[in-house]
């Protein structure tokens, strides 16, 4: 059977007879890598562009149409020592990039306008106390209006749009008082300019927008960066399937290019990337990523196989099905929809603050106007003072208080190996006081480990590892890895469903089922872990038993202890069998656990805890965890999780250790503390500034100074979120 790699799905025409492909590359982190890759790839004839993006860790390539196969670039990068895979921009990421650019453009325009309006304001401020002709002052005011009005109309769009969205949903957010403040300040300034008045607030209004856009842009940029890393990781997982393009010809194609009805081949040791039904073959499959159950399931004609299942023994042919055909998947999707709808009701700290803030500020402004009128001032002066109150209280610092902390905190989490999926995850994570762990793939590592390697002589174990290299079976792969085997034994023969055998120096070696190695009696008598898969190894008459299972994450116990030390409740909810869950719970010293739990039970348990007032953090990876990840107050997934779970989780952590869970909780708590502190700073500033504004002595100079002073204070305070302590466990 002939196998070809087909990357045509990722190639697009770049015009002028050129073709373009984007590759995600692993391990690029310095200028040296950048130069090495660019030179290495440009050396291929007919390549017209090879450019590394160090921020996103990607390479853009262009070449003359029809001259090269994209697979060649991947091979070339492999030679240079980098793992690469074609990358397809997801629509979510494309939106983030466009949004980020738009904010940067708004920021540029607002900053340009601020600088120029300030330049015009300074002579007016100083002219007011010395000698400036009223005509000159008016001229400067008109000029300021000419710059500030169009700039504010453009750069204010992010705020105006969001405020409008909130108002049309009959709620408020922070952008409502911002928009009202800016619009009123500009409107009043135009009226004052027409009336040849002394004070206008063009400078304050446009400066306010600039400061707020800085916060928005930083926030957006961090999110974009996180999204890019997540996108790369997804691309490097290289989800492909062997699709039949002819009766006897298969092509390795990306999952995105597979359609329902296609027939794919699933070989032993491969993880299925699509949902389908078996049409030919017989095998055992590991569905632990889907159900949490670690016991293998037999797959034969008609058995549904879900994406994420690992094929263990035989080769299968699958017919790809549409997603919602099966009961399990349909059930999970239904639960997920319900849970997601419930979660969107969470109100962010900023919105809660603005819900209190907007009415208070607007009422104060109104009372100021009425107060001055009652005190005998004219309507014009009273309204000018009222608007001054709105400008000075316009939540510049308040608008920066949360996004700046969020940016700095998500940067710190990013370094600790945690990616944020949801914008409000930090706030929710900080509140978590009960953690529910899934067992399989979360507390345990997704790959298998040999548990009794120490009990077997090193030379025998090395030999078993070398023999294991000749098998596709995942258990064999684990043995080979544990033994650090490099060179396979020549002439090894694999017997499907049984094991591998070879003859070395006249002695027969066998690795596989205990019965295959004649060690059934030994396996039966040995008191081994009920969890583990048992394989036997025989060298002539010598027989050994290897017990292979998913090991706990190296620091799982320390992490659980650290969580308990932080007064956070810990519990295990697993879809796996009871003995397996008990073993894990004992090893980790967790008192509360439930085994054999269905997705519905998991949600019920979370609801029960919610009713008791607990804020639940759910950490899980399987597809069966997806609904409970959505139902929990906040959720986390390892990067090895099923697609659906990863998309649902608020945070995703990388790597083998479990420590990022604690690190993330710590940073989130610190960040929430700083957010609150920033809000108090902003409120304190308002308490000082409002009486001054009400008394009617706020000049544009005072407004400008107060606004920049409070914004800078808040930004500096936010930077403290960077210094997260390294000792987490």
């Amino acid at each position: 059977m002939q196998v070809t790699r087909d990357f045509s799905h990722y190639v697009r025409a770049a015009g002028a007879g050129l073709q373009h492909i984007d590759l995600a590359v692993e391990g690029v982190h310095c200028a040296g890598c950048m130069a090495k890759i660019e030179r290495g790839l440009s050396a291929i004839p007919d390549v017209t562009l090879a450019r590394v993006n160090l921020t996103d860790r990607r390479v853009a390539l262009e070449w003359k149409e029809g001259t090269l196969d994209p697979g060649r670039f991947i091979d070339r990068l492999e030679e240079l020592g980098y793992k690469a895979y074609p990358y397809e921009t997801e629509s979510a990421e494309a939106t983030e990039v466009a949004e980020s650019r738009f904010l940067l453009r708004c920021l540029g325009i607002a900053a340009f306008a601020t600088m120029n309006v300030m330049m015009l304001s300074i002579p007016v401020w100083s002219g007011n106390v010395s000698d400036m002709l009223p005509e000159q002052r008016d001229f400067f005011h008109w000029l300021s209006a000419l710059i500030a009005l169009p700039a504010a109309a453009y750069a204010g769009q992010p705020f105006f749009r969001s405020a409008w969205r909130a108002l049309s949903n009959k709620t408020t957010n922070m952008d409502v008082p911002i928009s009202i403040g800016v619009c009123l300040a500009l409107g009043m300034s135009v009226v004052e300019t027409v009336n040849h008045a002394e004070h206008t607030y063009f400078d304050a209004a446009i400066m306010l927008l600039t400061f707020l856009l800085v916060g928005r842009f930083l926030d957006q940029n961090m999110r974009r960066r996180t999204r890019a890393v997540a996108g790369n990781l997804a691309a490097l997982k290289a989800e492909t399937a062997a699709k039949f393009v002819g009766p006897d010809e298969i092509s390795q194609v990306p999952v995105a290019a597979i359609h329902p009805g296609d027939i794919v081949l699933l070989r032993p040791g491969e993880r299925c990337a699509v949902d389908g039904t078996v049409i030919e073959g017989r095998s055992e499959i590991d569905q632990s990523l889907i159900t949490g159950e670690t016991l293998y399931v037999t797959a034969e004609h008609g058995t549904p196989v879900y994406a994420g299942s690992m094929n263990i023994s035989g080769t299968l042919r699958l017919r790809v099905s549409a997603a919602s055909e099966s009961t399990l998947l349909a059930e999970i999707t239904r639960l997920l929809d319900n849970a997601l709808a419930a979660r969107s009701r969470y109100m962010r700290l900023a919105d809660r603050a603005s819900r209190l803030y907007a009415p208070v500020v607007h009422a104060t402004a109104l009372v100021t106007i009425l107060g001055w009128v009652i005190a005998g001032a004219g309507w014009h002066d009273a309204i000018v003072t009222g608007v001054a109150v709105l400008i000075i209280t316009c939540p510049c610092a308040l608008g920066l208080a949360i996004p700046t902390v969020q940016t700095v905190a998500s940067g710190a989490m990013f370094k600790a190996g945690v990616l944020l999926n949801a914008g409000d995850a930090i706030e929710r994570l900080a509140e978590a006081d009960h953690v529910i762990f899934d067992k399989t793939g979360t507390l345990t590592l997704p790959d298998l480990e040999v548990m009794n390697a120490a009990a077997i002589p090193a030379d025998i174990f090395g030999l078993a590892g070398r023999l294991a290299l000749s098998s596709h079976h995942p258990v064999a792969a684990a043995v080979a890895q544990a033994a650090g085997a490099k060179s396979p034994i020549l002439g090894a023969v694999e017997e499907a469903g049984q094991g591998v055998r070879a003859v070395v120096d006249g002695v027969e070696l066998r690795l596989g089922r205990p019965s295959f190695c004649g060690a059934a009696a030994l396996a039966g008598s040995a008191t081994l872990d009920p969890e583990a898969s048992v394989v036997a190894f025989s060298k002539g008459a010598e027989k050994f038993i290897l017990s292979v299972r998913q090991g706990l994450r190296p620091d799982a116990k320390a992490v659980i202890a650290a969580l308990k030390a932080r007064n956070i409740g810990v519990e295990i909810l697993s879809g796996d069998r009871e003995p397996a869950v008990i073993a894990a719970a004992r090893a980790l010293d967790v008192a509360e656990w439930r085994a054999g739990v269905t997705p519905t039970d998991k949600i019920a348990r979370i609801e029960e805890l919610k009713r008791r007032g607990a804020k639940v953090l759910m950490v899980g990876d399987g597809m069966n965890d997806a609904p409970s990840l959505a139902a929990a107050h906040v959720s986390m997934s390892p990067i090895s999780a099923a697609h659906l779970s990863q998309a649902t989780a608020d945070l995703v952590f990388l790597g083998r250790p479990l420590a990022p869970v604690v690190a993330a909780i710590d940073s989130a708590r610190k960040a929430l503390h700083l957010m609150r502190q920033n809000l108090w700073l902003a409120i304190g500033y308002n308490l000082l500034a409002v009486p001054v504004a009400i008394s009617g002595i706020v000049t544009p100079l005072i407004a400008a100074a107060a606004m920049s002073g409070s914004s800078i204070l808040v930004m500096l305070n936010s930077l403290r979120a960077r210094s997260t302590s390294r000792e987490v466990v």
Partner: protein
Amino acid sequence: MEILVYLVPLALLLGGAGLAAFLWSLRSGQYDDLDGAAWRAIADDDPPPQEAPAKR
């Protein structure tokens, strides 16, 4: 104060030129890879390998 007649348009023109330059740099993708750009500035400018003469 007639000098304002020249100075004000000049100031606006210079400011506008700065803004135009910024918008151009944004459009031509110079903000897409800030980390990479920082390193490129100090990288050695070796001539490209022989196989690919002046492909850019």
